[in-house]
C-alpha cells in the first residue's frame, strides 16, 4: 500500500523490458501495461480525494550527506498529472499503429518515457525528481531521432540540447540551494521560503544570488513549457517527431514544465519571481498572442497545432504569473488567485487531452494521406469522411474553447482569475483567444470544406475500431465541459492548500 507510487513508476519500466524483448507483439504488451497504469493512476486520483495535502507518501534516506531522500507523494495536482500522463500514453500507443521498424524498441521507449513522467510527477526530492526529468528526455530523443520525419536529426538534437540547457541551469540552482540550506526536498524548501528563511540562508551562504538562482530554475521550466522566447525548438520538434510521439510531447511532456512551475518554482522562488512579475506577464502574453499568430501563418497541420499548443500553454503561464501577488488577508484576491490557479491546472489537463486527441486525428489522417499533412493538400474531406470530420471537429472546438466542451471551462477560469489580478495582461491575451479561433476555423474550413481533391476520392472513413477507440476521449471532453467539478473538486482543495503556503 505504501509503495503504490513506486510500483506505478516501476510498472512501465518492467513493461518496457517486456516490450523490448517481445519484438512484433510489443504494441499489445505496451497497450496492456499502459492501460493497467491508467487504471492505477485513476484509482490513485480517486483515493486522493479532497485532502489537498500530500498522500501516498514514501520517504527513506538515500544519501544523507547530500540531503538526498527517496521522497514520493501526490496531492490533487500530482494525481491529476499521473492520470494525464497515463491517458496520453494510452492515446499515443493507440495512435502508433504504423510503426514497422524495430517495434520492440519503439514501444519500450514509449513506456520508459511514461515511467519518466510518473517519476517526475511524484518525486518530492530534487535528486530523483531530476533523475526522472532527465531520463524522460532520452526515450523522447530516440523516438524522434529514429522514427521521425526527414529532418529528424537536427530536430532531435535541438530538442535535446535546448532542454539540457534548461536542465543544467535548474541543476546549478538547486545545488546552490543545497549549499545554502543543506537540503533538496521540495516541501522543505517551500516551507523555508514561506517563512523567508530561505532568502536569508542564500544571502548568508552565497551572497546576492537569489535572483540568479530563481532565473536558473525558471529557465529550466520555461524551455520545457515553452515560454517565448525559449520556444524555438518546439515547432521543429513537434513537426519532425512521429505524430504519435508528438502526442506524448505536447500532451504530457510540455506539462512537466507547467507542473514544475507550480510545484517548485512558485513555492520556492515566489519572492524573486514576484519581483519579475511584470516581465514574466509580458512574456506570457507574448506567448499567448505570438503563439497564436504564428499558427496563422503555418502551412503544415502539425506546425499549426504545435504553435497552437504554445498558445494554449501560454494561458497557463499567464495564470501562474498573474497569481504572483501577495494574497494574505485579501479575500477577493485570494478568490481570484485560486480561480486562476484552478484554471491553470485544469488547462493542463484539458490541453493535454485535447491536443493529444487532435494529434491522434492527425495521425489517422496521415495514415490515410500517405504522409501528406499540408493545409493545401486537403479540402472537402467532409464529403468523403464525414465521421472523421465530425469527431475531429469536436476536438477542434474543444481546443477553440467552445462552451460545453472542456477547453472553455479552464480558459474561462483563467480569465476570470487573471482579470482582477492583471487586467492589462488579460486584455491583451484575449487577442490570443480570437486569433486561435480564427486558426481553428481556418483549419476546419480548409480541410473539411471546399471542393474535394481527386487524390482523396478513395479515402476511407474511420473504422469501427478507431471510432470505439476515439470515443472515450471525446466523451471525456464533453463530460469535463459539462461537469468540470469532477476535476475541480479535487484540484480546488490542493490549490487552496498551495496558495496558503505561498508567500511573495
Amino acid at each position: 500500500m505504501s509503495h503504490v507510487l513506486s510500483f506505478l513508476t516501476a510498472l512501465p519500466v518492467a513493461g518496457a523490458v517486456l516490450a523490448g524483448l517481445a519484438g512484433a507483439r510489443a504494441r499489445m504488451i505496451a497497450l496492456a501495461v499502459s492501460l493497467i497504469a491508467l487504471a492505477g493512476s485513476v484509482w490513485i486520483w480517486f483515493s486522493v480525494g479532497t485532502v489537498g495535502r500530500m498522500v501516498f507518501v514514501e520517504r527513506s534516506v538515500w544519501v544523507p550527506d547530500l540531503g538526498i531522500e527517496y521522497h514520493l507523494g501526490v496531492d490533487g495536482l500530482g494525481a491529476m498529472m499521473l492520470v494525464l500522463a497515463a491517458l496520453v500514453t494510452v492515446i499515443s500507443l493507440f495512435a502508433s499503429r504504423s510503426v514497422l521498424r524495430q517495434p520492440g524498441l519503439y514501444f519500450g521507449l514509449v513506456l520508459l518515457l511514461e515511467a519518466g513522467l510518473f517519476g517526475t510527477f511524484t518525486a518530492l526530492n530534487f535528486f530523483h525528481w531530476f533523475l526522472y526529468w532527465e531520463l524522460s528526455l532520452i526515450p523522447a530523443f530516440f523516438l524522434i531521432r529514429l522514427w521521425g520525419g526527414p529532418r529528424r536529426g537536427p530536430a532531435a538534437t535541438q530538442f535535446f540540447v535546448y532542454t539540457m540547457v534548461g536542465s543544467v541551469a535548474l541543476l546549478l540552482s538547486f545545488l546552490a540551494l543545497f549549499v545554502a540550506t543543506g537540503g533538496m526536498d521540495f516541501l522543505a524548501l517551500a516551507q523555508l521560503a514561506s517563512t523567508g528563511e530561505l532568502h536569508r540562508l542564500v544571502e548568508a551562504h552565497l551572497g546576492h544570488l537569489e535572483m540568479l538562482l530563481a532565473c536558473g530554475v525558471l529557465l529550466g521550466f520555461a524551455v520545457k513549457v515553452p515560454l517565448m522566447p525559449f520556444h524555438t525548438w518546439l515547432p521543429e520538434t513537434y513537426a519532425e517527431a512521429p505524430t504519435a510521439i508528438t502526442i506524448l510531447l505536447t500532451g504530457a511532456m510540455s506539462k512537466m514544465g507547467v507542473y514544475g512551475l507550480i510545484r517548485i518554482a512558485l513555492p520556492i522562488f515566489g519572492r524573486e519571481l514576484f519581483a519579475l512579475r511584470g516581465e514574466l506577464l509580458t512574456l506570457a502574453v507574448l506567448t499567448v498572442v505570438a503563439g497564436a499568430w504564428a499558427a496563422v501563418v503555418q502551412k503544415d497541420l502539425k506546425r499549426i497545432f504545435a504553435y497552437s499548443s504554445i498558445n494554449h500553454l501560454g494561458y497557463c503561464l499567464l495564470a501562474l504569473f498573474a497569481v504572483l501577488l501577495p494574497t494574505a488577508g485579501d479575500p477577493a484576491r485570494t478568490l481570484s488567485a485560486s480561480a486562476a490557479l484552478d484554471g491553470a491546472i485544469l488547462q493542463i489537463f484539458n490541453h493535454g487531452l485535447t491536443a493529444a486527441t487532435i494529434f491522434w486525428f492527425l495521425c489517422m489522417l496521415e495514415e490515410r494521406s500517405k504522409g501528406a499533412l499540408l493545409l493545401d493538400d486537403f479540402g472537402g474531406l467532409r464529403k468523403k469522411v464525414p465521421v472523421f470530420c465530425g469527431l475531429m471537429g469536436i476536438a477542434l472546438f474543444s481546443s477553440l474553447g467552445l462552451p460545453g466542451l472542456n477547453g472553455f471551462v479552464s480558459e474561462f477560469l483563467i480569465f476570470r482569475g487573471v482579470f482582477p489580478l492583471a487586467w492589462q495582461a488579460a486584455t491583451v491575451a484575449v487577442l490570443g483567444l480570437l486569433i486561435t479561433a480564427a486558426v481553428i476555423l481556418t483549419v476546419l474550413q480548409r480541410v473539411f470544406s471546399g471542393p474535394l481533391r481527386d487524390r482523396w476520392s478513395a479515402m476511407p472513413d474511420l473504422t469501427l475500431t478507431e471510432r470505439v477507440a476515439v470515443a472515450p476521449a471525446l466523451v471525456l471532453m464533453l463530460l469535463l465541459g459539462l461537469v468540470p467539478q469532477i476535476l475541480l473538486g479535487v484540484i480546488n482543495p490542493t490549490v487552496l492548500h498551495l496558495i496558503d503556503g505561498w508567500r511573495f
Partner: protein
Amino acid sequence: MLAWTIYLSFGGALLIALFTQGRPQMARALALVTALGGLILAVLAFFTQSGVAPIVDAAWIPAMGIRYTLSADGISRVLVLLTGFAAVAGVLFSWNIDRRVNEFFGFYLALIGGVYGVFLSADLFLFFVFYEVAIVPKYFLIAIWGSTRREYGAMKLALYSFLGSAMVLVGLLAAYAISGGHTLNLAALQQFAFPVSFQMWAFPLVFLGFAILAGIWPLHTWAPTGHVAAPTAASMLLAGVVMKLGAYGCLRVAMTLFPHGLDPWGWSFLGIGSWRAVFALLAVIGIVYGAAVALIQNDFKFVIGYSSVSHMGLVLLGLMSLSQIGLDGAVLQMFSHGVLAGLLFATVGRIVYERTHTRDLSALSRMHLSRTLPFAAWLFVLAGMASMGLPGFSGFIAELQVLIGAWAAFPVFTVIAGVGIVVGVAYTWRAMQKAFFSDAPAGSSPSALSLPSQELHVFDPITWAEKAGVVLLLAASLAVGLAPRLLLDQITPAVLALPHTLLTGGRL
C-alpha cells in the same frame, strides 16, 4: 593485504615478459588472472577495511630516513578499486592484441603495479618511485601498439609526464631539505610546519607538476594526442587511472603538505588573488575548453580524449573548492571518470574501431552502426549518458558534489562550468548521432517508419571478453550512481582526516 596488489602485478609482469614468449593465449590468461587477483584484493579491502589501514612499514634507506611504508585510507581504497576495475577491463579489451603479446601484457601489468603503488604509498620517496614506474611503460604501450601518430603521441606524453614529475621532484627535494632531511613520510611531513613563504612557491610547483598528468589546461595537450595514439587498453588506463595519479598527487601531496600555498597572496589581479583562484580558473577553462574542442573533432577518439580533459577539470575544480563535499566529489569524479572513460574508449577504440577500421565520424556516419552494431550503439548511448552526467550514473553524483562545493567557493566559475556541462551534452550527442544514428546520405532516404532496403555491412559479433568488460564497467558506474554511499562511506572519513585548512576554504 593490499600490498599484494603491487607485488602481484609486478610479479605477473615479470612472469609474462620472461616466460610466455610465443604463447599468447597463456600470456593473456596470466594477465587476466593477475588483474583479477588485484581486483579481488581491492574489493576485499574495500569492504573489510575502514579508516587508515597501515599495510607495511619497514626500514628502507635508513641513512636518509626513507622507509618502505604502505598504507591505505578511504581515498586510496577507492582508487585502488578503480585500478582493479580498469585493469581487468583493460585486459579483456586487449584480448585481440596479437603482436608481441607477452611484451604488451608485461608493460601493461608493470604500469598497473606502479599505479597501485602510488595509491598505497605513504612515503613520498616511494610514492615518487611508483609514480615514475607508472609512466615509463605508458610510452612503450603507445609507441609499439598504438595507432595514429603513435610515436609522436607517446613521446609527447612521456615528455609532458616527465616535465610534471621534474617539477614534483624539485618540490619534494626542497620539502625534504627544509624539513631537516629526517623523513619523507607523508604523515610526518604533514606535521612539519613548512614556512608559509616556502609553501607559496612549493605548492604551485608541485600541484602543477601533478596537474599536468591530470590534464590541466593549458598543459593538457598530451592527453588527447596520447589517448588517440594509444591502443585501447592503454587509452583506458591512461584516462582511467593514470590521469587519476595526477589528481591524486595534487590532493595527497601538494595540497596536504602545503595547505598554506592556497592562502591569498594579499593582492589580486582581476579577482585572482591566490593560487587557489588560479588553479580553479584553469580547471574551469579546462572544463569548457575541453568540451568545446571535443565538439568540433572529427576523430571519434579525439572527442573522448578532449572529454577527458573536460572531466578532469571538474576534479580539479572540486579539489580547489576546499570543502568536504567538493573534495568528496573530486574523488568520486576520479572514480567515475576512470570507469566511464574506460568504457568510452573501449567502445570507440575496441568495439567500433576494430570492426570498422575507422574512427572518422563522417566515415562512420555512412555505416549505419545503430543497425549493424546495435550493441555498440546502445552501449555508447549508455556510456555517453553517464559521461555527460545524467542522473542515475556515477558521473552525476560526482558532478553534483563538485558543483555544490564550487558554488560555495566560486559562484561565477560554477556557472561557467555549467556551460561546459551543456557543451558536454552537445559533443556527446553529436558524436553519438554522427557515429551511430546517422541517416544514410547515400541512396534514397527511406520513410522513417518503414524498413531500410540498402545493403548493410556485416561485422564480427561481439566477443565474450568485450561483453564481460562492458558489464563490469557499466555495473560499477551504475552501482555508484544509485548507491553513492558505497564509495562515500569510504571517502568522507578520509577527506575529513585531511588538514583542517583544506576543508574550510569557504568563499574565494
